[in-house]
């Protein structure tokens, strides 16, 4: 079990470092990407999808498969996430990268994300009963 803690903390550090050096957590850069003023981040993202796609094709069978499927929450959920991302410049991992760069207001985003996750769980259990197939990591 100790190994798991070690692996995840090394991976977390690497991910934070890489995202910071890419500039993915910089609100101005994110804004320029969404407004199609600058294509650097867009190319970075598309490029990393391509790298992952090629490697997972070469080593197919050894890569974990996912069971993600279209469910009633896919469209409204993604739409809400997009609006939130445009306002905060953060996705669930970028908020930590912003904090690591000393951006204090990201504390509010952090609280917000936690509240949102908890609120969704409560509402899902009460009103929406479909299966969301969330990332099971």
């Amino acid at each position, binding site marked *: 079990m100790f190994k798991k803690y070690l692996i995840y903390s090394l*991976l977390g550090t690497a991910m934070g470092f890489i995202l910071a050096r890419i500039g993915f957590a910089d609100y101005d850069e994110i804004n320029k990407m969404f407004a199609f003023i600058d294509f650097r981040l867009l190319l970075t993202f598309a490029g*990393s999808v391509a790298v992952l796609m090629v490697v997972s094709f070469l080593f197919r069978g050894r890569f974990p498969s996912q069971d993600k499927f279209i469910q009633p929450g896919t469209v409204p959920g993604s739409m809400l996430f997009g609006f939130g991302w445009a306002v905060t410049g953060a996705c669930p991992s970028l908020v930590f990268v912003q904090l690591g760069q000393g951006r204090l207001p990201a504390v509010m985003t952090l609280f917000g994300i936690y509240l949102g996750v908890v609120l969704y769980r409560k509402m899902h259990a009460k009103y929406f009963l479909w299966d969301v197939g969330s990332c099971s990591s």
Partner: protein
Amino acid sequence: MEYWEWWIGALALGLFSVFFSFLTGKPLGVSGSWLSIARRKEDAILKASAEVLDGNQDEVKDDLMAMTMAEFGDDVLADISADSPQRREGEANAEVTDEIKLKQDYTPWTVHVLFLVTMFLGSYLASLTTGDFSWSIDLSPLHTQIFENDGEAWIALLFGGMMVGFGTQMAGGCTSGHGLSGCAQLIPASLLSTAIFFGSATALTILMNSMV
């Protein structure tokens, strides 16, 4: 901070997600880590069920049999022992289910906390090594320009964060789960989700920028 050229970033992020999958046996997905933290109270149940399944598979099967008998009565035994069509059918099914290993992988929620906290550390190290670290009360110059004063900006961030948290759970993934891991495997739900969150973010960004 001088940011990386796009191809350096693409190689780094792409290879990182490859290493993530190889080392953890799971596709990269950060909103799953948030979920795991939010449901930490159920962690004991998940852990116990994983241990039971790993520990004694025969015992689990006996328990399932006992529950079946309690539900349907002892007649079930007669049905199974008789050389009936159901029996033969059941046998065929049993052979199939035996091949499926009852295994549940359990990752404690504290591992996910560590993963997220070290992401903060990694980013901090990046800004230290480039000599750009400083505390600031604004998110960015443009963000301040859009939201005019700090109070408004901070409240917008709280509600924006709630939309991110709520939306990623509802959509079943985020930038990493849908956008990176899902799109690389060409999963329809991930392609749809990525197209929609990019689209809605673009629409709102253009709208906000036009009002400045």
